Each structure stands twice: as C-alpha cells, then as structure tokens.
C-alpha cells in the first residue's frame, strides 16, 4: 500500500525540486549553490520518489542505470579539462567565451560551468546508485 499523502505530495514536489536543483547548479558560480548541492537536491528528489512509489518505479523514471549517469558526469568533467589542454594550457585550465548582452554586460560561458555539470551528474549518479541499491536489498 502506498502512503497517499506522500505520493500526492511527491507528484507535485518533484518537478519543483528538480527545477530547484538545476537552478542551484547554474547560479552556483555566483551565489550559494553549485554542482555538489544541486546534485544532492536532485538525488534527494529521486529518493523521495523512491520512498513514495518504490524502487521499480524510480528506476523506470530514471530510464538509465545511475551508474551510467555517474560515468557520463565523470566524462563531462574530464572533457571540460581537455578543452584547456587543446589550447596548449595545462589540464583543466578554464576557458571562457563571452556572449554580449549589450550595455557592456555579457554572459560568460566556460568550461568551469561544464565541469560543474559533470560534478552535478556524478553526485546524482553515485548517490542514487548507493541508495537505490540499498533500497532494493539483495
């Protein structure tokens, strides 16, 4: 039997929480937040889902094995390090491009941001791997 309040609440909370996690991730460079925190929030969201609907449902929702998410995250993080390498700088040197927004302001997009996305994915993947595997039991 599924707890009604929890399932209902989860249904409404999930999109908001995931949005929050993405928000935390992207604002992290300038305000509190970042890949670690965002990733933990996202992982927490799925764990909430797991408690409400059970592991099978959560795995269905995720579609991929969380280990794949971990691996993708690591690859993205390393890949953003390679970008610096390609320009002849040491591994992981930040590379930025600035998109002009007018009025002397600009939007900075750079490899540290993609690196943070990698961190975000690794945190989600590793946390979910652990919790889901434990929740499933043996």
């Amino acid at each position, binding site marked *: 039997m599924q707890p009604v309040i929890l399932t209902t609440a989860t249904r409404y909370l999930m999109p908001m929480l995931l949005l929050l996690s993405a928000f935390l991730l992207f604002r992290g460079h*300038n*305000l*509190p937040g970042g890949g*670690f925190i965002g990733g*933990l929030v996202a992982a927490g969201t799925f764990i909430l889902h797991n408690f409400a609907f059970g592991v099978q449902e959560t795995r269905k929702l995720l579609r991929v094995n969380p280990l794949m998410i971990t691996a993708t995250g690591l690859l993205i993080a390393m890949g953003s390090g390679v970008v610096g390498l390609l320009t002849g700088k040491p591994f992981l040197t930040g590379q930025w491009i600035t998109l002009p927004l007018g009025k002397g302001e600009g939007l900075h997009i750079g490899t540290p941001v993609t690196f943070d996305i990698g961190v975000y994915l690794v*945190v989600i993947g*590793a*946390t979910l791997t*652990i919790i889901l595997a*434990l929740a499933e039991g043996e």
Partner: protein
Amino acid sequence: MNTLIAVLVGVLFGAGIFLMMSRTPVKLIIGLVFLSNAINLLIFDAAGLTRGIPPIIATGAETMAGSSADPLPQALILTAIVISFGVLAFALVLFNRTFKSLTARDLNELKATDT
C-alpha cells in the same frame, strides 16, 4: 566562539574514537561519522570564524570584501562532506557483507588477516 567550537571538536573526536574502539559494528560506523564531522568542524574552526558574511563577491564589486569568511576551508569541507558520505555508504555495505558472510557479531571475531 572559537574556544567553544574547539571544545565541541574535542567532544566529537573523543566520542568518535570511543565508538570506534567498541566491538559492535554499528558503533564503529557511527564513530566514523562522528570523526568526519569532527574533522570538518576542525578545519572550519582552525581557519578562523567570521560571523555572517559569506565569501561571495557583492554585485558591482570586483573583489571579495575583506570581512568575508575564508573561502578556502569551505571549499575543502564541501567536497569532504560529500566524499565522507560515499565512504560511509561503502563502509556500511562492506561491514554488512562481511558480517553476513562470516556470521560474526563481534569485531573481535574478525581477527584472521586472510579470511
């Protein structure tokens, strides 16, 4: 406040060590958590405490205000928190596995070096 945190670090550390020396597996793991918390707090405190102002560069400013908290220990601790969670999970499952396959409930029963 520094002094108070220092005392707290000592208490947490001592409690962690005490639990780790126990022969019950769960106590050992809880001791591990205590220890990592104590160390995080130690780094935080040893670097000096600054009330209230996070290490964030204010809009319009180019550099961080001098009165802000020290960002370096925070960066160290942030990753440490997440990692200790991973390590804790691993330790927990490893212990679980070991005690199940050896059907031991006392850490002293696990003294062979090559089982």
